[in-house]
């Protein structure tokens, strides 16, 4: 019971996402950060106010963190379908209390 809770907490903390999700987050973070940097420069230059550059850049970074960092469910929509476990075929041959450990 305690092990289960601990495992859940660990999963939540680690926030693992599947391979497709990793690809998506990579793409999204790159796009958000690059466009916010470019936009920050353009807005600041157009308005002739460097504070706009600062805050637009920081805001873009904050959005990137919010969108990418938490393990949202849509980053876990295509779990990898591993091959089924082939039991008994290549066992290690170690037995504990009459049970075979693979």
């Amino acid at each position, binding site marked *: 019971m305690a092990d289960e809770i601990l495992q859940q907490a660990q999963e939540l*903390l*680690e*926030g*693992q*996402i599947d391979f497709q*999700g*990793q*690809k998506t*987050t*990579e793409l999204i*973070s*790159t796009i958000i*950060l*690059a466009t*916010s*940097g*470019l936009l*920050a*420069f353009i807005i*600041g*230059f157009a*308005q*002739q*106010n*460097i*504070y*706009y*550059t600062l*805050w637009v*850049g920081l*805001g873009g*970074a904050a959005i*990137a*963190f919010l969108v*990418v*960092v*938490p*393990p949202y469910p849509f980053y876990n929509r295509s779990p990898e379908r591993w091959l089924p476990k082939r039991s008994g075929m290549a066992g290690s041959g170690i037995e504990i209390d009459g049970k075979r450990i693979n």
Partner: protein
Amino acid sequence: MHSTLVRVQNVFGFFTTVAFCTALLTALSVLLIPQHPRASIELRNVQVVKGRPHYYSPKKEEYAHIKFDLDADFTSLFNWNTKQIFVWVTATYPSSKTSSSAPPSQAIIWDTIINSRSQSHPFNPLQLIKSATTPTKKSSKAKSPTKKKDPELEPGIIRLKNSKPKYQITDISGILSERTNVTLEVGWNVQPWVGALTWTLPEGMEIGRWKGVKGGKSKAFDMPPLKGKTASSETVVASGGTPKAAEASAVI
């Protein structure tokens, strides 16, 4: 990107790269903005008196008290990336009468820091949010004339009439009287938010869209002979404090 910690590290790492590139673009964009500073400086009055660097000093030196007029327009030095500019006036004179190979002596007689508008009125989005959330309370007050904004003056205009020097200057030899060929010069240093510091562009010089200062040099004058050799007219520089600029409000 498989776990939270890795995603935090990756996003932050790329953010630093983006921030650096934006800063680089900002620093380089300054080159596109034309600069055409103009300054005219004239001598008003000059006196040379004997004095001591501080009260207990046994050494006596000659101090020049130079009053001047300065009329300068440095507004074009203020672009979106300017934090502040430092402006100074130097007195330049030949170091020795005999050898012309020695570099001239220079001493600053007056200086000031001019803040840009972005420095004096920083923009903070948190204030926008604050004022947006409490509009009902202040709506009645906003109509009252108490909320008066300062006139949006472009910083960088200096008008000094008969200004006292901030610093009384002396020479390493201790003798300043009857020096010849003294000129007053205006110099500046632009301090940007990001990027390189830039210094005075001398007259006639041109770098891209940046033009050198128009004027910025006074006519040559000579130092007068020593005034009042009696002990009563001695000045003590340190205890007297540095004289302040004639009108602080004249610097906008």
